[in-house]
């Protein structure tokens, strides 16, 4: 039996089968399918490097006068993540100011270590950590809202702009 495996034109046999075979739609579908595979591959690579959170592309570190804050600039709603803060003490304390907008859009799950004092200041939250030299603080947070969020976390009077994009 001789069969033709070459050429690009799709076979269009005449058959007696009562079948609604719309070959032109099939051809369009195959093209869309290949484009779809390519898009899925791109999404997979993007996800692997952290475009949707948890990865190299997502991790952001801000450094100012010895204080360091590390957070995920891309994240997903209801996905727990950490904000890591390294700060030098000022007058025996590290003061962290979480703005009202940040608290509205994130659930603060856990703070490690526990702050010695919580203070509410104009809707924002002031956390006081008594420390010697350096403090290593981790905030376990869970985003509640979706979209772009720009907040400022203040550590010992130094402002750190936290810009996040939260996926649904």
């Amino acid at each position, binding site marked *: 039996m001789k069969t033709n*495996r070459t050429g690009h034109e*799709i*076979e269009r046999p005449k*058959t007696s089968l009562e079948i609604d075979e719309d070959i032109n739609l099939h051809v369009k579908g195959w093209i869309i399918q290949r484009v779809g595979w390519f898009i899925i591959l791109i999404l997979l690579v993007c996800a692997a490097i952290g475009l949707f959170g948890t990865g190299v592309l997502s991790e952001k570190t801000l450094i100012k006068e010895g204080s360091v804050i590390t957070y995920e600039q891309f994240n997903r709603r*209801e996905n727990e993540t950490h904000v890591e803060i390294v700060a030098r003490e000022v007058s025996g304390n590290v003061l962290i100011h979480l703005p009202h907008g940040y608290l509205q859009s994130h659930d603060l799950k856990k703070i490690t270590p526990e702050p010695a004092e919580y203070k509410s200041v104009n809707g924002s939250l002031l956390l006081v950590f008594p420390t010697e030299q350096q403090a290593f603080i981790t905030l376990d947070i869970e985003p509640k809202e979706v979209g772009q969020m720009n907040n400022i976390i203040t550590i010992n009077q130094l402002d750190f702009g936290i810009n996040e994009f939260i996926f649904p």
Partner: protein
Amino acid sequence: MNPVLRGLAIYLFLLLLFRIMGKRSLSEATTFDFVLLLIISEVTQQALLGHDYSITGAFILIITLISIDLIFSLIKENSSFFGKVTEGIPLIIVDEGKPLFKRMKKCKVDEADILEAARLNFGLQKMKDIKYAILEKNGTITIVPY
């Protein structure tokens, strides 16, 4: 997110994904495919429910999924094109004993798959014994013997 919107998003995403992956993606369910299907359903369930474990939440989601399915079937009744796009259409892959290789390649079907279907259904041994083979909408291969 609202459970109705969540259900709608998941339904449309799965529909689109399985259409893109093609007819044969999960139709030949090997043991591993079965496990894969279970994992997919587990992931989907978590995305559907989130932290909402209430009976009302479950009712809303079930109603949402069934309603979308019903709406889709009503649209399909009135528009054959919509049905073709969402469910796919059958495709002849063997004509008068001759495999249509370009079609088979596009659908990720090889001669072994066709011969397997021929053996399973009619005990046929050779390609020349097959008059027609059709790749159906659900990804299975129908054999019409001579």
